[in-house]
Structure formats: structure tokens, C-alpha cells
């Protein structure tokens, strides 16, 4: 459930950055409307994920897919932080035009790939436990 709320909403903003959806809406509006709603989703995800981890911490820690999943989560965090610092302050410049700076597009694509990877790694790790 939280997966839909967190990743589902982030993906919509990624799609806007890639100009695949909501092209008629300013990117900052999509960000402002969708991204805050994703935060409770992430909180539930981390809390429930932590509980699952505690239940079999040693096995999970030794699982290659789990390690990659954690690494991907860190990368997704860095990517989001990078976007906040580098592109967010200047969003007003390109907000209403149909174009999105290359770097911001790349950040959106990276986010899309990382989150899809996190889902895949999480699902696959269960087959190795």
C-alpha cells in the first residue's frame, strides 16, 4: 500500500521531468502537489521494511540482492538530494516552457530506473533467503 503512495507518486513526477506526462502543467506544480503526499508512504515503507529486516537480519544482511537494494536506496536518496540542490532552485526558469534541462531529465530517468530496480531487488531477494 505504501509502495503505491511513495513510489507511485514519485514516478509521476519522474514522468513529468521526462515530459511523458503532465506536459501542460508546470513541473513545480506537479512536484508541489505530488511529492509531499509521498512522504507518509516512505515513512510506512521504512518502518515496515525495518520490521521485516529485524525478523531475519542475519540472513537478509548476507543476501546479495538485499545489499544491492540498500545501495539503490542510497543512490535514489542522493539523486533526490542532488535534484533539490541543483535543479529545484532554478525550476522557475523552465517551469512553464515545454522543455526540461537535460540534467533534470537525467535525474528523473535515474529515479525511475532506481525505484524499478529497488522493487525488483526486493522481490528477488525473497528467492534467495
Amino acid at each position, binding site marked *: 500500500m505504501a*509502495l*503505491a*503512495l511513495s513510489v507511485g507518486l514519485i514516478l509521476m513526477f519522474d514522468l513529468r521531468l521526462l515530459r511523458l*506526462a503532465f506536459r501542460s*502543467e508546470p513541473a513545480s506544480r506537479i512536484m508541489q502537489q505530488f511529492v509531499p*503526499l509521498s512522504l507518509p508512504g516512505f515513512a510506512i515503507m521504512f518502518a515496515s521494511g525495518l520490521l521485516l529486516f529485524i525478523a531475519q537480519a542475519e540472513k537478509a544482511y548476507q543476501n546479495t540482492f538485499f545489499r544491492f537494494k540498500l545501495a539503490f536506496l542510497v543512490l535514489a536518496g542522493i539523486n533526490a538530494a542532488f535534484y533539490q540542490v541543483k535543479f529545484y532552485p532554478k525550476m522557475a526558469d523552465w517551469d512553464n516552457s515545454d522543455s526540461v534541462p537535460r540534467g533534470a531529465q537525467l535525474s528523473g530517468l535515474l529515479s525511475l530506473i532506481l525505484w524499478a530496480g529497488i522493487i525488483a531487488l526486493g*522481490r*528477488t531477494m525473497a528467492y534467495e533467503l
Partner: protein
Amino acid sequence: MSLQHLWELSYDSKTIDILRNAKYAIPLIQSLHLFGLTLVLGTTVIFNLRLLGFGMRKITMPVLDKQLWRVAIGGLLLSIVTGALVFIPDPARYAANTAFKTKLVLLSLAILFQFTIFRRAVRSDVPPLGPRNIIIAATSLTLWFSVGWAGRAIAFLG
């Protein structure tokens, strides 16, 4: 032809053996299944929050409908195709699973609701927070998340 005969076709098939024997085929397909589900449930959450008037008031319903409907349908198609690919290699196991049967019923109801009452509500730009919208949003969220939970329960009910 009974269902058992139909299942035999799968268990006898050399082509489907590829899916059964490849170590990461099923996990990979399930990952895509979850990705499709994320798109369906994610858009469902957005539509329903908007119907209830929680945030996103600056984005009108027709805009949401135009942009998100295809994402929802794309996610649904991906989920159905990958779901079928998980089912086909081991049909007898799933057909005997209570959670799976429950899921199929809930999924049918959710799809039916999505394409009728829900779509009509999403397309008409009615003011939010009416009792009608609350009932529609509650029904939609309950149905879709029940589908998700029933799907997760398949693995636990053996």
C-alpha cells in the same frame, strides 16, 4: 475439457518448462508485476485523494484524467500479462489457492468499478468532498488495495 486437462497442457509443455526451470524468470516477472501494480495503485491513490479534495486542487480533474488514465491502464495491462506468466507455469497450485481465487474475484470487481462509476466520477469535474465522492473513493481504494493484499497472501496460504 476440464480445468485439470487444461493444467496438464501447461505441465506437459516444453516451452513453459523454460519459465519453470530458469532460476530468475519468476522473480523477474513478479518484479514487473509489482511495477505495474505500483502504477495502478499509485494512480488510484492520486485520483482518489483528488476526489476527496486532499491536496492537488490546482490540478483539475480533466487534466488528471487525461494524463493519468493511460498510466493506470498501462500498469494494469503490464500486471495482467505478467500475472498470467506467473500463473501459467503452475496453474494447479494457484487454482487451489484461496487467496488467489479471492484475488481474481476482487480484481474483476475492481476493474468493473474502475471502468464504470469511477471513470465517470473522474471525468466530471464535480466539486470534491460530497458524500458521493467519499463513497466512490472508499470503494475504489478498498477494492484495489484488497487485490494487492490478496495477491501478497497467495504466498502465505501455500
